[in-house]
């Protein structure tokens, strides 16, 4: 029997954790002699107070949805993929190669091609750790994180030696052809006559991210493949007994995971920068871990958590840009949110469970 109603489990618990994290953040801000109220106001206004802020929040959230889903899919197979950073970087390379070397006349055509490019390279980058784990038992945590560094080095080489236009100082590829630039959300809104979020990087990739959430939900809970992934994640001997090949499922789960992480590049490389820069992923791969954990490894939870981190990212950026609060503090606030919602989850959950049990007992008694 459930100890407490579903809504309390999914919404109330994270909310209380969040409030606790905010309260401690406020104390920290107070301790360095700034006003927590002002800080909070700057964050909320900067991230959610205008269509401009939303444009950035949704842009960051889109990144985190992809990397969060990537971690989530692997997690259901009991694989901890912390290589989202490298997989997303290689996905960026896939996007760049597709857009620079295949002449595509329109973005609607370029989008699926770039998605395939991003997914293939992201998946390829996850494939080697996956096969090492499946066949040799090399631990996926170690191999995926090491592959992040290899990806950084490979990308550096490719950008500096191969893709960089001669004479350019910037280690970045040439701009993608104009025709392949994705419409931003503000363009989309402008076409129906609404002015929204001018000059913000949010683009149509957001809808693809929403679609990806739905597809991942279908995959994990409504297909045989998803069942096999979950079965392997719950118990490997059990899965083997049921005739599921751990090698096959391990590799497939990691390929899907890497492909999702790679698809993030549609948002940041194709949608925002419109060229491949060296530092394109910017830690989104690691934030994906927190997003997946906080979202309780459910696509809808990932979506909500990604929005929250999008808010923290954009609000935190505003805070550092326009107040004298040092940027290190933003990391403290983000870390506190992760700590409370991820690691200290039971601290809130257990008292809540007791509370609901007592309430229920009272009901029964009456």
């Amino acid at each position, binding site marked *: 029997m459930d100890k407490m109603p579903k809504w309390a489990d999914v919404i109330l618990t994270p909310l209380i954790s969040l409030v606790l994290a905010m309260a401690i953040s406020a104390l920290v801000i107070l301790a360095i002699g700034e006003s927590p109220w002002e800080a909070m106001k700057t964050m909320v206004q900067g991230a959610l107070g205008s269509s401009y802020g939303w444009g950035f929040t949704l842009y960051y959230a889109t990144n985190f949805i992809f990397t969060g889903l990537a971690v989530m899919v692997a997690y259901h197979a009991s694989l901890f993929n912390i290589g989202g950073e490298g997989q997303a970087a290689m996905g960026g390379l896939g996007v760049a190669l597709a857009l620079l070397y295949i002449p595509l006349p329109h973005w609607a055509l370029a989008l699926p091609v770039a998605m395939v490019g991003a997914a293939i390279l992201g998946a390829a980058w996850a494939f080697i750790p996956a096969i090492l784990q499946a066949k040799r038992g090399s631990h996926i945590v170690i191999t995926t994180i090491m592959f992040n*560094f290899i990806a950084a080095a490979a990308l550096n*080489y490719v950008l500096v030696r191969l893709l960089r236009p001669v*004479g350019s100082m*910037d280690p*970045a590829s040439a701009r993608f052809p104009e025709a392949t630039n994705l419409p931003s959300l503000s363009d989309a809104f402008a076409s129906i006559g609404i002015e929204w979020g001018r000059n913000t990087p949010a683009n149509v990739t957001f809808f693809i991210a929403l679609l990806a959430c739905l597809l991942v939900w279908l995959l994990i809970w409504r297909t045989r493949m998803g069942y096999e992934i979950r079965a392997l994640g719950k118990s490997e001997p059990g899965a083997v007994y049921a005739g599921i090949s751990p090698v096959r499922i391990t590799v497939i789960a990691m390929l899907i995971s890497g492909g999702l992480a790679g698809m993030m590049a549609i948002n940041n490389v194709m949608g*925002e920068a419109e060229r491949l820069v*060296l530092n394109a992923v*910017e830690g989104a791969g690691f934030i994906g871990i927190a997003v997946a954990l906080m979202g309780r490894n459910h696509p809808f939870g990932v979506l909500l958590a990604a929005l929250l981190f999008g808010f923290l990212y954009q609000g*935190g950026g505003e805070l550092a*840009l326009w107040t004298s609060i040092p940027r290190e503090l933003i990391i403290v606030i983000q870390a506190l949110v992760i700590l409370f919602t991820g690691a200290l989850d039971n601290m809130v959950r257990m008292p809540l469970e007791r509370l609901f049990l007592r309430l229920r007992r009272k009901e029964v008694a009456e």
Partner: protein
Amino acid sequence: MSFMKTLLAGSALTVLSSAAALADPALIFDLGGKFDKSFNEAAYVGAQRWVEETGGSYRELEMQSEAQREQALRRLAETGSNPIVMTGFAFGDVLTKVSPDYPDTKFVIIDMVVDAPNVQSVVFTEEQGSYLAGVMAAMSSDSGKAGFIGGMDIPLIHKFHCGFAQGFKATQPEGEVFLNFTGTTPAAWNDPVKGGELARAQISQGADVIYAAAGGTGIGVLQAAADEGVLSVGVDSNQNALHPGQVLTSMVKRVDNAVFDAFTAGADVEAGIKVMDLSAGGVDVAIDDSNAELVDAEMQAAIDEAKAGIASGEIEVHDYMTDNSCPAS
């Protein structure tokens, strides 16, 4: 009545401060952060000098992410900052996009050329300053081997390396210059421990002068060189005094002057390309009390000769950026 007075005084103050803000310059630091002991910090020093001399005020921003670059530029331009100075080539692409939208605002970009009517592009001839450092290194090297430690494998750092190698080989044609990079992620600019390890590796190969162009990583290189009793060459700011008598010289890049000049010129800053070369004092090798005993008359003469040669065009220091290759390596 008194309430009214305060209200009026208050609004008068607001008007005043907004008028002041209108003319304020702004400075944007790149992702490395303000206090990187190197490039960004040099810009900060220039801005501080301007504050001390004029008593003015300026706005400053530190970038947190790539997507914020455009946001920061637009916000500053919209709130009336003028001129807006930014450090680092990474702003180039964004500035090309943003500058036409604010024709009345002047932008200054350091280390990159952006061709627009309201942009001043400040570029330094790092290869010339590094050439001089190479000449000095070759004259003080007994083994004929020198080391170069760069931060990341990016074109800008190759420019430093190429100038250094050319200067070294111009004096010691049979000489050798080792090249190592600290890393492949931005963390490479702030990894003194690894810098020290690389310096030791180069020393064990016989290098007896080591040039570091690696931001905060260079501190570790200089330290390791001092510990092992070989000479080192600092970069960007004058780092001679870090280990007096053990730092041969520093290839100074006067980013501070570029920022100071831009702030002083204010909204009248001239558009176009501003080349801060050797003759303009944009780059130089620092010689002061800390390294005076390392620089004998012969070496000083060689430096002067090289400087004159570069100024007259007799010595042409190849710029790596023009064709992505270096004749001296």
